[in-house]
């Protein structure tokens, strides 16, 4: 065993102390007919060859593309100090701070995380933490039902599809219902939540609504009329859940300002690598009025018996290990190390750096919009956006594939991600951030132009481009 300490002499001494002859005797209580047949796995791999194998697997992924893919996960610059701090064993090899006297580092960092996120979202109670944006949003939806004792939640269709599907799964057991608020079909507000439809859904007197969920910016990158949505929700006695992207909150109004009762969202943009889906950071925050309903860990400031300032997990009567079947959620292990990553990120970039990240993304996105429109791929919608938007490209899936062969990841094919929405059939969802370069934007536009006009790939990739899958063939080698 690669990491074990025991020599044959150690094992012999332990067996003698226990008073048995072999380890097998310690497993005698497993009934004979239920004992495992065998364990058929590859042979142990020494570190040297295992490292090479892992490197080879990682090299089969293509991460060198000019990428314009966002759709809920964004590439950002992560200052070098973050990972060095995260690699300290005192952070990542500790567990939940059950013993506060020897966990003040983790506890204070969580308190600071709560404070930093509270500042960004403009709400006072921040739970630390949830699995990801989707699970946090589902917990937010459940909170609205517990708090109002109502059973129906309305979710804008422009909330990320994965989040909507996660809410549906979380609602499956409790007899709760989730309904979709449609989007405006055309005009200036096309692609945003349909306020008139929301008003109609809220008006049903027999089926009172617990919560209304909308996203800012929404999945299509558009800015939503959050104040209006919140006012309609509150007028019907429902709570308002804002799904947010934390970097955008450097420049967009915080949920607390436009009347949201709960904010949920994906913390990945705060210095966390994409790593094919996680681990990420579920952000969940609420007004003080909802503090007894919020699930997940809360850390508070207190004092020790000598009067020194100290931090401790608190209001634990909401949690599963204390309350069992009456707990607010079953959540136990969460994403503590990612909450630390987000805090360190915010400390490193500071308020002005975070604003620059958001504003640079907006500037690069405007540049991208102009460049793509010039080669025949205009925006699908006309409302304002921050750093992500949809362009209309006939035959989007095929165009996307041809661009991939030429080293450009042209965002998300909406016909594949949202197959049941004909309005998006020709759409590519593209984004830019502060790491997007002028050169990459130029490559995207030039290559798109080539593809749309049927021009063959440039010489360096000519061999691969004619057959199906240049980048693809490369990736499978």
């Amino acid at each position, binding site marked *: 065993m690669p990491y074990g300490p025991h020599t044959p002499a150690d094992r012999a001494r332990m067996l003698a102390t226990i008073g048995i002859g072999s380890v097998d005797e310690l497993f005698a209580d497993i009934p004979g007919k239920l004992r495992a047949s065998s364990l058929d796995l590859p042979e142990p791999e020494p570190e040297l060859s295992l490292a090479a194998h892992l490197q080879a697997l990682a090299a089969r992924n293509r991460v060198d593309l000019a990428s314009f893919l966002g759709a809920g996960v964004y590439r950002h610059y992560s200052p070098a100090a973050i990972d060095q701090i995260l690699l300290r064993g005192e952070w990542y090899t500790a567990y939940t701070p059950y013993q506060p006297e020897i966990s003040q580092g983790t506890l204070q960092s969580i308190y600071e995380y709560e404070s930093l996120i509270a*500042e960004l979202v403009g709400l006072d109670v921040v739970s630390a*933490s949830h699995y990801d944006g989707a699970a946090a949003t589902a917990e937010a939806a459940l909170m609205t039902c517990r708090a109002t004792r109502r059973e129906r939640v309305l979710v804008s269709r422009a909330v990320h599809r994965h989040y909507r599907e996660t809410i549906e799964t979380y609602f499956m057991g409790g007899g709760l219902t989730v309904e979709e608020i449609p989007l405006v079909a055309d005009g200036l507000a096309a692609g945003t939540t349909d306020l008139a439809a929301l008003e109609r859904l809220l008006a049903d007197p027999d089926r009172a609504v617990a919560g209304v969920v909308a996203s800012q910016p929404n999945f299509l990158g558009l800015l939503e009329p959050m104040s209006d949505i919140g006012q309609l929700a509150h007028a019907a006695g429902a709570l308002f859940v804002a799904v947010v992207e934390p970097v955008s909150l450097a420049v967009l109004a915080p949920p607390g300002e436009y009347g949201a009762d709960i904010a949920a969202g994906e913390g990945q943009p705060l210095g966390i690598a994409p790593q094919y889906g996680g681990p990420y950071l579920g952000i969940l925050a609420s007004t003080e009025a909802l503090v007894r309903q919020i699930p997940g860990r809360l850390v508070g400031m207190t004092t020790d018996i000598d009067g020194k300032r100290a931090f401790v997990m608190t209001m634990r009567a909401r949690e599963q290990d204390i309350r069992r079947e009456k707990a607010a959620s*079953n959540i136990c292990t*969460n994403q503590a190390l990612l909450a630390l990553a987000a805090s360190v990120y915010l400390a490193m970039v500071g308020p002005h750096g975070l604003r620059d990240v958001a504003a640079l993304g907006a500037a690069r996105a405007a540049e991208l919009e102009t460049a793509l429109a010039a080669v025949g791929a205009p925006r699908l919608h006309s409302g304002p956006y921050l750093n992500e938007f949809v362009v209309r490209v006939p035959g989007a899936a095929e165009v996307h594939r041809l661009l991939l062969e030429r080293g450009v*990841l042209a965002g998300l094919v909406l016909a594949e991600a949202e197959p049941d929405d004909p309005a998006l059939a020709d759409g590519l969802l593209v984004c830019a951030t502060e790491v997007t370069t002028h050169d990459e934007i130029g490559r995207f536009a030039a290559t798109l132009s080539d593809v749309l006009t049927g021009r063959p790939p440039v010489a360096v990739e000519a061999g691969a481009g004619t057959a199906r899958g240049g980048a693809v063939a490369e990736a*499978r080698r």
Partner: protein
Amino acid sequence: MSVAGNRLQPTIFEKSSPGRGGGKIPHAPKDALDRIPAAARRAGPAALPELNEPEAVRHYVNLSQLNYAVDTGFYPLGSCTMKWNPKLNEWAARLPGFAGLHPMAPDAVAQGTLQLLWELEAALAEISGMTALTLQPAAGAQGELTGILMIRAYHHDRGDLDRTEVLVPDSSHGTNPATATMAGFTTVTIPSAADGGVDLDAFRAALGPRTAAVMITNPSTLGLFEARIGELLDAVHEAGALAYMDGANLNAILGRFKPGEAGFDVMHFNVHKTFSTPHGGGGPGAGPVGVGPKLVAYLPSPRVIRDEDAGFRLERPGERPTSIGRMRSFVGNTGVLVRAYAYIRAHGGSGLREVSDDAVLAANYLKARLAGTYDEPYGDRPCKHEFVVSAASLKKATGVRTLDIAKRLIDYGYHPPTIYFPLIVEEGMLIEPTETEPIETLDAFAEALIAIAGEARTDPDLVHEAPHDTPVRRLDEVKAARQPNLRWRPMAGAQTPCPD
């Protein structure tokens, strides 16, 4: 000294000075946001702290030194499997090819990760004896919810709508009943028998046409193998219910017992316990779920599929309508799963079996060393990877409680065991040494616990007032709960003196 540092830190807000920091991100053009309507914009910058890099780094390094961790010492926290976290795995997860891959990248550019996930699924199926898996759940508790929702879907598909109850032993993790509630079931708690196992008569009496599922942790949270597991599983299936195995204690039975072979219908893995992925101060984890044949159709989507041309891909939206749906965004906590994969490959089948053998050997050795000093509520029968002792007799004799003993262990340089869990043991301590601690550490820890029992008799106040040698001492938890201060505010902070 149990932690390296003793310098309490002002909050990062108190270290901020307007105008400090910068140099990380280029400035944006002044007109970058002009096209955003004023109504949607934030009035002024968020009041985040401003620090230069050296001060920010020192803040987090000094804070880290107030923590106890596996990298700094013995962490016998029962039920949590605080084993060594191999360093290769941290390196692997950070390889740019793994870390930089977008979760919605086309399958063609994600073949390395997809292959790794596919192989990991196969390995976990072999380890558990299950038919198929989902790697999507983000933690054990989410895995539990996944499993119970699949069981719900199974009964519903059969028109079996009256099964509204989930049976849970009274020694179970709190997540089990909390999960049952989240999934819309009523929890029925089954008492334990005197030997620590499930009370078979009480269990049979509770089973019936209303039972949807039974959740069993095996070995149990007392560290005992459920010797009547065959009878229990037969009774569950005769009643038309399904059996859920809480895999939190899998570290005891690798290569010795396969839940799927034994008849469990579904189980979750805690890869941050059994497969060494670090606990991160409270996460991230990952909670893959394995299922038997009855539940394969209900697995969350997307699954990783191997196509005929030997390429790998993710299921497409709507491809498998019988799925219960999604538990979270994307495919799962892939970065954690990379570490688990590396751990399994480093050990191979023979190494994993040795892991359990050594974990169980170490626990029984420590248990033998403590016999006679602390009560053994379940006698001298062998334990698995962890065991419970009780300080009930010591408390009666000296007034010293388990909490005091735990705090005194900190003075001796150890992280305390899990205390007062399972709830059914009076003054209980759940001790899990894991397989990666040398015999010298086990001996020294046993001697510390024996010495503390002596102190309880000769100098009880020394133990009552522990810990003595920590950056802070026992905390005012009542104040924390009654006057909650859950975020920094300049005024609230000023009321509590800032450490110098």
